[in-house]
């Protein structure tokens, strides 16, 4: 047991040390965390989108609709499971499973902190790119197995879209990897953890490295990742107004919810990759510019402060709730929720927790910025047409990606690095 707990002070990931028990725990935590994140994301997407659209969003199930995603999940679970009569049954059954598995597998290599990853592969980036592109298989299977026109069109769109944007994405990723060679020892790496450490050593996020080329690479990745996850404005495979629901038109109930889960998990995954590669992963902002114990202490209060802020917001919501008998339970619920948030805030002030949560907090905070951006794009932009999407991918993103790659690769050869 002591040995088991000793791991907490280890400087390696469980995968590296071969600590099977801790690896399992990490996997469970990540799985649970992602599920919670998807539920939260569901609620946030509805709320944020609603507010952008001068609406309220869910308000009825729970205070401010907080329980809405749970209610929806329950509804989906107990829905009748419908399989089209002429569907390819095995493929139809496997498609959502494959999509979910690939979406979750990517998280194995994602470092939430220097030790907080399931494993640190030396080919981490390659693994990530490989596994995440497998997801398209599930989508094609879903489209084909449905034996229907809309899903087929959606699947075809999806496959070509993903294949095209994978290239642009790869270009951007390679330029980030090349930047890891700019450290003093000159050794490049594909390991996700070491990429972040390289940013630490170079005292700069790759986002700002060789400006604007690092930024350009990041920008290409940021667009390609929206396309990869089939989100607006690149949500052609499931374009509602054209293809009804694209590849999952024939899916309902739990199978559909698996696609939903996979979509959000994939969003989290690619955002995590972007954060890792360009935004310094778990590093706190200004870790070198505002260095020193004072600043460290200042930034270490951020997690607790965030929760206190949420606590205040929830409390304000409780107070502002209409005084009406119908709101009694809702009011109590929101109050309790506020207290839970406050409790978490207090918990995060306890020194050992405070120290250990730092990495994860900054990582999650950066990812949530991306998540917000996803919702924001969806609320603002129209949808690209298929050929335009391809044009953008092949004629803009890939050439720019290659150009950035060439510059990033060539500049160090002439000792011209900034």
């Amino acid at each position, binding site marked *: 047991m002591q040995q088991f707990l000793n791991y907490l002070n280890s400087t390696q990931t469980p995968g590296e040390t071969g600590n099977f028990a801790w690896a399992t725990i990490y996997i469970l935590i990540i799985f649970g965390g992602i599920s919670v994140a998807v539920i939260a994301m569901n609620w946030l997407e509805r709320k944020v*989108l609603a507010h952008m659209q001068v609406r309220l969003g869910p308000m009825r199930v729970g205070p401010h609709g907080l329980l809405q995603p749970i209610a929806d999940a329950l509804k989906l679970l107990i829905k009748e499971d419908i399989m089209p009569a002429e569907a390819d049954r095995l493929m139809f059954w496997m498609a959502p499973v494959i999509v979910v598995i690939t979406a979750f597998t990517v998280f194995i290599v994602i470092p939430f902190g220097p030790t907080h990853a399931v494993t640190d592969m030396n080919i981490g980036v390659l693994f990530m790119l490989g596994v995440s592109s497998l997801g398209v298989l599930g989508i094609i299977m879903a489209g084909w197995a449905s034996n229907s026109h809309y899903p087929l069109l959606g699947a075809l769109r999806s496959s070509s879209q993903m294949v095209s944007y994978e290239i642009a994405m790869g270009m951007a990723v390679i330029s980030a990897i090349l930047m890891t060679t700019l450290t003093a020892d000159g050794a490049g790496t594909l390991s996700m953890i070491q990429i972040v450490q390289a940013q630490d050593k170079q005292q700069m996020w790759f986002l700002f490295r060789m400006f604007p080329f690092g930024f350009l690479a990041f920008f290409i990745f940021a667009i390609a990742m929206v396309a990869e996850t089939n989100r607006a404005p690149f*949500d052609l495979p499931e374009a509602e*107004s054209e293809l009804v629901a694209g590849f999952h038109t024939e899916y309902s109930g739990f199978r559909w919810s698996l696609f939903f889960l996979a979509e959000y998990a994939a969003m989290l995954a690619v955002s995590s990759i972007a954060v890792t590669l360009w935004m310094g992963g778990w590093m706190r902002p200004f870790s070198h510019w505002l260095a020193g114990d004072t600043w460290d202490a200042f930034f270490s209060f951020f997690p607790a402060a965030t929760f206190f802020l949420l606590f205040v917001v929830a409390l304000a919501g409780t107070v502002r709730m209409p005084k009406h008998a119908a709101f009694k339970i809702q009011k109590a619920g929101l109050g309790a929720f506020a207290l839970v948030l406050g409790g978490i805030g207090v918990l995060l002030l306890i020194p050992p927790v405070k120290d250990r949560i730092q990495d994860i907090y900054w990582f999650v905070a950066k990812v949530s910025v991306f998540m917000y951006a996803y919702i924001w794009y969806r609320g603002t932009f129209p949808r690209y047409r*298929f050929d335009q999407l391809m044009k953008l991918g092949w004629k803009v993103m890939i050439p720019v990606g290659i150009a950035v790659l060439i510059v990033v690769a060539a500049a160090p050869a002439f000792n011209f690095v900034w």
Partner: protein
Amino acid sequence: MADDTKSRTAHLDLDTPESQIETYMHRRAAPAREEETYLDANELVLNMGPQHPSTHGVLRVILKLDGEKVLGTECIIGYLHRGVEKIAENRTYTMFNPYVDRMDYVAAVSNGLGYCEAVEKLLNIEAPPRAQYIRVILAELNRLASHMLWLGTHALDIGAITPLFYTFRDREEILKIFEKYCGARLTTHAFRIGGCQYETYEGFEQDVIKFCKFVRPKIDEYETLLTTNRIWVERTRGVGVISAADAIDFGVTGPVLRASGVKWDLRKAQPYAAYKNFEFDIPIGQNGDTYDRYIVRIAEMHQSLRIIEQAVGAIPEGPIMGKVPKVMKPPVGEIYHSIEAPKGELGYFIVSDGSTQPYRVRVRPPSFVNLQALDKMVRGALVADVVAVIGTIDIVLGEVDR
């Protein structure tokens, strides 16, 4: 003559033998062999509608596709057919009035205006000036409402979900004015034959002026979201092009015709109600594509506001109801009267046999005629363009099917 037909309508795919058309209507039959599926056809036949998110109701379009390229379309309409023209034959002139609101239900006021004016013409009377001004104000407000609803749904079809809510919010203000004026929001039944039933309520003018001030920046907001947005421009420019000559040939009217560069608006060409008293421009486009139709409609919204502001400042005093016989028995005869509805030329052809009920009422629905040009506009385009073009024609199935 038959050969002539063929050459002039080659783009319509009218050459397809009828039997073949049947086959793709009835493709739902089980495949002959077990290993053969629906997907074995060389051409993909996609059945869009009648329950599709972006066919604006119950339009059903059968698309013949090569990959995503549209080879041909066929519209199946009539799902919302209620026999309005037959109903008219069994109602008196007054009783039929509320029914016309149910055709183009997003522009009910315009429908009512057209009908009332047609019957007034048949009766050889005219609504008093005050009534005509009120009619113009409400009809223009209705045009705004219709265009707003169009913009929201059109943007939604193209994937921008947010403008829908902004336009509906602003349309709500118009509906509130309608509700205050005549007691109903959508199917207003605002006008009666011979004038208006309702006197303006207290504060009507202020409400309308306030609305005009309120809505101008909101239209600019829609434009911020869409007009220059590169995705929107790419999605709409060069999509669904129809030339001026084709547009006239297809009998297309309204903003769709004007976007093709034909400067023709019934409000100017043959002014009805009080339109001859107002100054306004007819916005036209050049290319006749979806983007131009968008620009034309946005410009029309501004022109409508101009008309409303002029009209509201100059409502004359006087009666609102003309001298109509208590029993409306127009003399034997027939009349065709048309107005510029938000969607195009809305005409009423009324035949009277001298009794209290019309012998025949024919409605010339702009949506119905405009929808016919869909095939011309989308042939050779992609599936996504079909959706954009259906949106840009601005059809209301209640009017298409009547």
